[in-house]
């Protein structure tokens, strides 16, 4: 079921010297039960985009279809109503510092004018759900970052929204708490069947959580795919840059050595990721294969890996490439410059 359809969304900020096209014609959709990832480096426009979705930022043009209406054309009052169907969590949690955990979680219910006993019941239910019953009467300053974000998740869920907007929700957390929050988001989708739009600059997050991922650069979605295909055969340099792990810095550093030979990016999917294909092909076709970089990514849908290799002056390079393709390996030729700059 389609939850959200965004069409050709634009938002420009007038700056002193020039206009900044933060969101420059973006279209995508999100289904029920789906975690849709928008990933990009800072400045790509993803924060502006997600803030446009619940109209915290008014888009200049474009459509935001949610719950049967185009939010972009609605009055403030209608938007306010629809925001109740759309929870939001933030990088810095944005909890009310002078309200207890209970009052934070209860806030959307209170604003919506729910009955007192209903508010209390629902708040306690949610605090139980996030596993913080011990902290019901505590203030946010007494909680760790991970706990704060869990409270924020509970607050965002208070009114049973259909969609959750997650704005860099794990960027301020350490790895342990990041994992905790991610598994909680996964759980939320399972338990409540909602959809999530998640923006992040961490490929790790997209990897662990998302079904489909869109890569943003300069206010545009430059590439959108299911996460497996994206990792397997990234089309854009920006995507490769986001996928690249720390391991690759070595290859980049020593890539001055890359001169001779054709360079390829090989994408391995489930079946081929575990097999010793390279050495097998090297022997069979009498090619010398120099491995420049590589990584295996554990995704929601299965494992995918990649290698950046160069074929040194070799025997049957054509045959080797053909064999790789036949074994389900995705081949992307790279120029030496590609390889140096954007492994």
């Amino acid at each position, binding site marked *: 079921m389609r939850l959200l359809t965004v069409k050709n969304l634009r938002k420009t900020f007038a700056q002193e010297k020039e206009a900044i096209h933060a969101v420059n014609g973006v279209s995508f959709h999100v289904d029920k039960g789906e975690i849709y990832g928008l990933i990009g480096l800072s400045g790509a426009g993803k924060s502006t985009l997600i803030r446009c979705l*619940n109209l*915290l930022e008014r888009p200049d043009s474009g459509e935001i279809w949610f719950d049967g209406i185009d939010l972009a054309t609605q009055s403030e009052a209608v938007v*306010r*109503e629809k*925001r*109740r169907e*759309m*929870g*939001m969590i*933030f990088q*810095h949690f*944005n*909890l*009310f*510092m*002078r*309200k207890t955990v209970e009052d934070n979680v209860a*806030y*959307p219910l*209170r*604003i*919506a004018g729910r009955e007192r006993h209903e508010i209390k019941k629902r708040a306690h239910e949610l605090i139980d759900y996030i596993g913080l019953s011990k902290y019901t009467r*505590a*203030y*946010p*300053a*007494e909680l760790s970052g991970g706990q704060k974000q869990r409270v*924020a998740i509970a*607050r*965002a869920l*208070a*009114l049973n929204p259909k969609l959750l*907007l997650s704005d860099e929700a794990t960027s301020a957390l350490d790895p342990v708490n990041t994992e905790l929050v991610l598994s909680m988001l996964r759980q939320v989708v399972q338990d409540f069947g909602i959809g999530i739009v998640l923006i992040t600059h961490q490929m790790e997050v997209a990897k662990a959580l998302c079904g489909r991922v869109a890569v943003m650069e300069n206010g545009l979605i430059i590439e959108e795919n299911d996460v497996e295909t994206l990792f397997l055969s990234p089309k854009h340099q920006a995507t490769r840059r986001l996928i690249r792990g720390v391991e690759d810095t070595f290859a980049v550093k020593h890539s001055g050595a890359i001169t001779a030979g054709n360079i390829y990016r090989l994408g391995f999917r489930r079946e081929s990721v575990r097999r010793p294909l390279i050495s097998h092909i090297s022997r069979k076709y009498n090619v010398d294969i120099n491995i420049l970089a590589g990584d295996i990514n554990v995704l929601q849908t299965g494992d995918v890996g990649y290698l950046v290799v160069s074929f040194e002056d070799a025997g049957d390079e054509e045959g080797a490439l053909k064999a790789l393709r036949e074994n389900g390996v995705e081949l992307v030729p790279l120029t030496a410059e590609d390889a140096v700059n954007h492994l």
Partner: protein
Amino acid sequence: MMTLELMKSTLETLEMVTVSSLFSVLLGLPLGVLLVLSRPGGLRPRSALYRALDAIINVFRSLPFLVLMIMVFPLSRLVTGRATGTTATIVPLAVAAIPFVARIMEQSLLEVDGGVLEAGLASGAKISQLVWTVLIPEALPALVNGITITVINIIGNSAMAGAIGGGGLGDLAVRYGLYRREPFMLYISVAIIIVLVQLVQWLGGYLERRLRRDGKVTVSA
């Protein structure tokens, strides 16, 4: 006789300070909220309104209290029927304090993190709900601190007002200290004013600390 006069003057000062503080906060806080909402980049930017308010507040704040008091005489007469006396003096005290309160409330409210306000909006709050349920509660310790400063300021001004027919402890100090050359009463009135200021400072500080503690670590396991 002297004790009676002291009591009377102290009560007058208390009346002037309490009532004018009340009015200045009652009118100054909404102005502060209005400034925060209407400022450029605020939740409801209204450039013209903001600039006008800003200018008026600056003008009123630059007027020395003594001058302002004389200027406000007609207003005092209109409101209370008299230009001098304790009740009449409440008017200039409040008028002088309102722009001060507005500015101080504005500064306190601006300290509230924009992200927290956004969380309120994203939860479905109207601006008016946001003001009452997030903006003011989150800024409360700073607001209390601002009110403390205001009351102390008004105590100072009320003593000055006494000198030109306002009654209260300032009046007492001028009459005995200046005209009658009886320094004892002067010192006593000064001492009472000091005690008043200290009391307000202590009470305000206590309240502020209590409020701030709410948002901070209260227990350690």
